[in-house]
C-alpha cells in the first residue's frame, strides 16, 4: 500500500466511499461539476483505485479535486455502492493537512472559505449572518438583498424578537458561553489546527508568489481570480 492510500484509509469517508469501482461512468453522467468543468469523477476514482503515490500526489496538488460541489448526486446512483464525493472529501482534507492545496488555483481558495465561513462560525456561532453578506461582494444577491441589508433592523425585527440580541429566536446573538464551548470543540477536535494550517500554508505560498503575505490583497485575489483554464 502506498503512503497516500495509507493516509487516506485513516478517513472513514474514504473507507465508505471506495469499494470497487468498475468505471461505468454513471457518477460522471449525473455530476453537476462534470457538466461545467473539465472534470471526470470516474477518471479520478480510477486513479485513486490504482493507488500510485506519484499520481495521488499530483491529484492532491491539482485543481481537479476542488471542482466537486459535494451535492452527493453520485452516491445513490453508483451501482457498486461507491461515493466519489466522499473520496473527494478525504482527498481535500489530506491536501490541506499536507499543505499541498496551495499548489493549485482552486485549492488556494480554501483561505477565502476559512476567513469567511470559518471565522463566522467561531465569532457568531453561525456559518453566515446578514452583515457579512455584503452586497459589494455578492452582486448576485440582487436589489432586494441590498434593501434588506440597508434596513436590516426594520426588517428582521418583524420576524424575530432577538435580532443581534442574546435569547431564543432567529439571528440571535450567540452567548459568550456558547461561543467558548464552540471554540473549545474546535481546539479539541482539530478544527483550530486545520484553520491554522490553512493560514500558515497560505502565508508561505503568498510570499512565494510575490505577495507580502496572506494579506487582504492575497485574500481578494484567491477569492476573485479565475484563470478560466478549468473548462
Amino acid at each position, binding site marked *: 500500500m502506498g503512503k497516500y492510500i495509507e493516509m487516506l484509509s485513516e*478517513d*472513514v469517508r474514504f473507507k465508505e466511499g471506495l469499494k470497487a469501482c468498475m468505471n461505468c461512468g454513471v457518477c460522471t453522467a449525473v455530476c453537476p*461539476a462534470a*457538466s*461545467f468543468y473539465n472534470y471526470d469523477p470516474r477518471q479520478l476514482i480510477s486513479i485513486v483505485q490504482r493507488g500510485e503515490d506519484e499520481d495521488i500526489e499530483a491529484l492532491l496538488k491539482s485543481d481537479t479535486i476542488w*471542482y466537486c*460541489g*459535494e*451535492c*452527493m*448526486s453520485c452516491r*445513490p446512483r453508483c451501482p457498486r455502492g461507491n461515493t466519489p464525493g466522499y473520496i473527494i*472529501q478525504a482527498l481535500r*482534507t489530506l491536501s*490541506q493537512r499536507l499543505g499541498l492545496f496551495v499548489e493549485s488555483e482552486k485549492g488556494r*481558495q*480554501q483561505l*477565502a*472559505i476559512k476567513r*469567511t*465561513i*470559518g471565522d463566522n*462560525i467561531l465569532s457568531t456561532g*453561525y*456559518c*453566515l449572518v446578514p452583515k457579512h453578506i455584503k452586497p459589494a*461582494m455578492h*452582486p*448576485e*444577491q*440582487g*436589489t*432586494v*438583498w*441590498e434593501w434588506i441589508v440597508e*434596513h436590516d*433592523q*426594520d*426588517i428582521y*425585527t*418583524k420576524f*424575530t424578537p432577538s435580532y443581534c440580541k442574546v435569547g*431564543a*429566536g*432567529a439571528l440571535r446573538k450567540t452567548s459568550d458561553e456558547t461561543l467558548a*464551548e*464552540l471554540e*473549545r*470543540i*474546535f*481546539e*479539541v*477536535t482539530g*478544527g483550530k489546527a*486545520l484553520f491554522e494550517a490553512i493560514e500558515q500554508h497560505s502565508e508561505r505560498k503568498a510570499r512565494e508568489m510575490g505577495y507580502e503575505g496572506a494579506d487582504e490583497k492575497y485574500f481578494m485575489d*484567491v*477569492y*476573485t*481570480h*479565475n484563470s478560466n483554464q478549468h473548462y
Partner: protein
Amino acid sequence: MKRSSWTDYQKEIADNNYYYARSCIRQNFFPGSEKAFLNILSKDLGRDIYDDPLHTSCTGIGYHGDIVPLETIMTVVARQFALMSEAGYENFTSSCITSFGIYTELLATWEEFPETEERTRENLYKATGREFTKPKNLAHTSDVIFHHRKEIGQKAKRKLINTYTGEPLKVVEHIGCHYAKIFPKSGIGGSEFPYVLAGMVEEWGGEIVDYPERRHCCGFGFRNYLVQANRGYSIANSHRKLESMAPFKPDFIVTNCPGCSMFLDKWQYTIAEMEGTTFGQNGCGIPVLTYEEMAGLVLGYDPWELGMQMHQVDVEPLLDKMGVEYDPSAKYLGVNGKYIGKPKKAIVNSRSKETLYRIKR
C-alpha cells in the same frame, strides 16, 4: 420503478414534542418562514416545539466547504444532541437540508464505525463536560409539515388553485440534494421519487410538474458559490434547471432547502440582468416559495407576515392567481408600520416583452 414507489420510502415522523435546530441560511434569507413554522406547529396545530437559545450552527457549510474536519462537526452535532436531552426532548427536527444530511450521515457513521462515536463522546466531554443521547426520532422540518399535511388541509383557508381558471396550480418541487441523496431511506420518497413536498402540494389542491432536470442540483455546490471566482458553476446549474422547467409553465417553485430557495430566486435575477432571460410567464421570473410559505398561505397567513417581500422575484402574480387578499403597500413597511422605501427595480420583475423567455417547441 414506478411513481408510486415513493411509498417504499417511508419513515417514522414524531407527532409531537420537537427540539428545533435552526438553519443558518433560512434565518438569514427566510426568517419569516422560520417564524411561520414555529407558529404553525405551536398555534395552528397545538404541538410542542422548543427553540433553544443554546444551540449553534451545525457548521455544515464549513464542513462541505472542507474547512471543518469530520471530528469537529461530529462533536458539534453531539453537542446539539446533548442540549436536546438536557432540555427534556427526544425528537430532533432540523430546518436545514445540509444539516439534516449531516445528522443522518453522522448517525449512520457512528453505527458503522463505532469507534468514531466513542471518540466523539470523549471529545464532547473533554471540550464541554456534556454527554449526549442520540435522538429517538430525526426529521427535517418539512417532514413534520408533511406529517401534518392532512390536518393543515382541514384548516385550509385557501387552496393551491388558480382562481382565474379553477385549475390546480402547477408546481415545481425541489427537495435539495442532501435531503435524500446521501441516505435515500431517510427521505420520504427517496431521491428518485421525492414525495415530501409533492405530498403537501397534492393534499392542498396543486399539481406537481415533472420535468427532465427535476433531480438536478440547484447549483449551490458549496465552494462553488462561497468563492466568487467559482460562481459560474452555481449559476450554470441553476440555469440548467430553470431552462428545463420553463416549458412546463409552472406557477411557482417550492423548495425543501433554504439554500435552494435562495439560489433559484437570486440566480433568476442574475440571469435576467446578464442576458435578459426570464423563465416565468408574462416576462417575469418564476416565484420561489419555501414550504413554510406555501403552508402559511394555505392556512391564511398574510404574505408579508411570512416574509415574502424578502424574495427577489415578486410573488404578487402568484398571490393574485391564488386569490390572496393583501395590501400591496404593506410590502415595504418595516417594524411598527414604518415605510422604509423600496428596492431598486430589476429586470426579473419587469414584465417587459423584450425579456420574455422564448419557449422552444
